[in-house]
């Protein structure tokens, strides 16, 4: 187990370095942030001075080495446009995004797994068919459109819920959370389901097919023959066996929710990391882009590790070996 974790960490460092090189070269190739940030009235000498002030006149490898030197000490550079620590900016925005992604995942699990199970148990009933038809909608409707429709109906037409932004926050262990206030929940009530929609559909389909397959297995027939209650057969024997793929997908999708909440964040003006990334890309604010991607890669690595460990808890046959994962 320990060897497994150490090995994984070493692999992660390689991934992080590769990632930072790719982003550095990519952003360098797009252009120069000075061109869009400097006041147009500035003359050529002012421009050159601003470029030099940010170290952008140096060769790329030199800029990268400067970055690496800082990164080793935990300093991922200062944002060009905000003049604050890039990592600090991301950390400041992280609670908002995590909260949104967590709420969305919770909705997806609470709705997706029971509905999927129901559809798997009653594939021919009207209820089962309706659930499956609904999941197709969840897959195929674009997030931004659904988001706008939610705003149109619940904010503009009915006036029940706020159309944008994050509600009042309270601090829990120093982390500002809006999940704990009524105003905060009202602000989450539209973006969280919007972000969850795709995953609800995904979990429904995954659980349903898993359940249908498991129901045909010998151990289920055996359990029934033993005279176990239907509740126990489904709740313990079926559910436990279909959870492995579901947990994998939940893990991966949770990472994706954090990384790609961007669309939902911009439609609902949710002050999260995704919005920060888009703004930074538009302004070529390289330190923030690099820091963001490194944070996301780290998150993915951590989530994958957690998923692997969860596996072994769910299925005793899975062992965390050196080459495994």
């Amino acid at each position, binding site marked *: 187990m320990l060897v497994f974790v150490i090995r994984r960490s070493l692999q992660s460092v390689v991934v992080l370095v590769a990632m930072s090189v790719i982003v550095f070269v990519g952003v360098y190739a797009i252009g120069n942030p000075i061109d*869009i940030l400097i006041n147009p009235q500035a003359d050529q*000498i002012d421009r050159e001075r*601003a470029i030099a002030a940010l170290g952008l006149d140096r060769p790329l490898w030199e800029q990268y080495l400067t970055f690496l030197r800082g990164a080793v000490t935990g300093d991922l550079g200062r944002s060009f446009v*905000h003049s604050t620590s890039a990592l600090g900016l991301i950390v400041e925005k992280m609670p908002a995004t995590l909260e949104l992604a967590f709420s969305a995942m919770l909705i997806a699990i609470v709705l997706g797994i029971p509905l999927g199970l129901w559809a798997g148990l009653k594939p021919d009933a009207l209820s089962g068919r309706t659930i499956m038809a609904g999941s197709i909608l969840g897959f195929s409707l674009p997030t931004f459109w659904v988001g706008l429709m939610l705003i149109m109906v619940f904010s503009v037409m009915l006036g029940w819920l706020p159309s*944008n932004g994050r509600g009042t926050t309270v601090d829990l262990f120093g982390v500002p959370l809006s999940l704990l206030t009524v105003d905060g929940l009202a602000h989450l009530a539209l973006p969280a389901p919007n972000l969850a929609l795709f995953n609800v559909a995904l979990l429904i389909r995954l659980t349903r097919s898993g359940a249908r397959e498991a129901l045909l297995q010998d151990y289920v027939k055996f359990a029934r023959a033993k005279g176990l209650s239907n509740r126990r057969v489904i709740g313990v024997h079926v559910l436990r066996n279909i959870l492995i793929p579901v947990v994998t997908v939940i893990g991966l999708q949770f990472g994706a929710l954090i990384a790609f909440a961007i669309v939902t964040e911009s439609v609902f003006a949710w002050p999260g990391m995704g919005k*920060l990334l888009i703004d930074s890309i538009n302004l070529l604010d390289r330190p923030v882009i690099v820091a963001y991607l490194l944070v996301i890669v780290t998150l993915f690595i951590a989530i994958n590790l957690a998923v692997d460990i969860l596996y072994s808890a769910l299925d005793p046959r899975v062992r965390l070996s050196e080459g495994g994962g």
Partner: protein
Amino acid sequence: MRRALGTVVAIVALAVASGAPAQSLRIGLAADVTSIDPHYINLIPNNNIAEHIFDKLVRMDADSRLVPGLATSWKPIGATTWEFRLRKGVKFHDGSDLTAADVAFSIDRVARIENSPGPFVAYTKAITAIDIVDPTTIRFRTASPHPLMPNDLSTIYIVSRKVASGASTEDFNTGRATVGSGPYRFVRYVNGDRIELVRNDGWWGGKAPFSGVTFRILKNDAARVAAILSGDVDAIEQPPIADLTRLSADPRFVVVSKISHRVIFFNFNHLERSSPFVTDRDGRQLARNPFRDLRVRRAMSKAVNRTAMVERVMEGHASPSGQLVSANLFGHVPGLEADAFDPEGAKRLLAEAGYPDGFQLTIHAPAGRYVNDEKIAQAAAQMLTRVGIVSKVETLPMAPYSARASRQEFSFHLLGWGASTGKASSPLRSLLATFDRDKGTGAVNWGRYSNPALDLLIAEAVGEVDDGRRRGLLEQATRLAMADVALMPLHFQFAIWATRKGIAYAPRTDEYTLAFQFRAT
């Protein structure tokens, strides 16, 4: 990280304690405010917030004319010295007096800001020395006559020497150093989300109508419109043109607009070498650059139907333009109209220039930088194709776009220019004067237009202290550039605001959204 979290904690505590003021105004902004430090980076959204918290010596009115700010009067003393007299009894938000020493400190701080991608130094570097005559009199000395001094100083915000000494940009973002003398005081800034301000009852310019203001950053057009429709904000800037008809028709909302200082135009590539984006009808690169021929440039200007463009593409929210600055601005040439739509004349001119069958052209345009920029380029492409210049459009985001345009990679590209100084000297000097690194001219002359006669006129105008004579020279320069079709103006954008009924805003040429200019009706 610890520090960032601590900040957030403090902010939250403050927000819970203060609550929402009763007579508070909520405004949806269309662009991100990257910092509260008024000297860090010269970006319009940042300046828009600074306008509330800080004062300047000279202000601009809704028509971009200079009016007294902290300075009640100013005059040149001799050829190279300007004297500004300060308003008496002005106090900072912390109760201390604002004196000439704070002004000197602020101008000095601009030059000392490090690592700024867009510093304000362009407006202070002419100043070689500052003399504090007495607490309300300050003199600026320059190396050569500098008639634009009041203009330059209309961009510099005055901070408190006592509080801002040694303060970093972060200290302004957290509010520690954010002590100004303006109509609103700083309450809190949440990056990418909101800025909250509360009224400064003792402002010398009179108490603002609303006791508090919350600016929300709503960059997404649909989200901004939804926010005003649902009543989450009281006013928004730049409502998307596609929604204006709906908003105007709705009795719950009011839409106001004004011709802005921003001109939208096409830049020609004036270099000798031809670019791969101009080819003959069979796709072969042309031997010479057709845009060096005045007849071709005139033909293209005649081929574009600006009236139709304004009516269809801009849905009436722009005004056709035949010059660089809109009426009201200094140096506008009365009666200089846009070229009339004349496709036959255009074809004749093309034939005369040796292109009876026209040629093929790729038009470049930024995506999402100016109002309907992509649609403008598409419409122009269709109009040009009709006279034989078979055109297609390529759009790209502003960052790579400006990088390539500034390297003269394009043949014919769309740009916008806001004459933020309110004077025609701004576009003439930056866009059309010959590119010269050491003289500081033509920094955005991306087409590399060069006309010695025009350069002479511009240089003379910039050094001319007499307003009347300077205006004459600027008008003369504009006429010369437009007769040569150095670039092809299309229209002046409108600055547009939508408010909830019961709230009125006097629209501004400079596109600023100023909370203290909103009134309850």
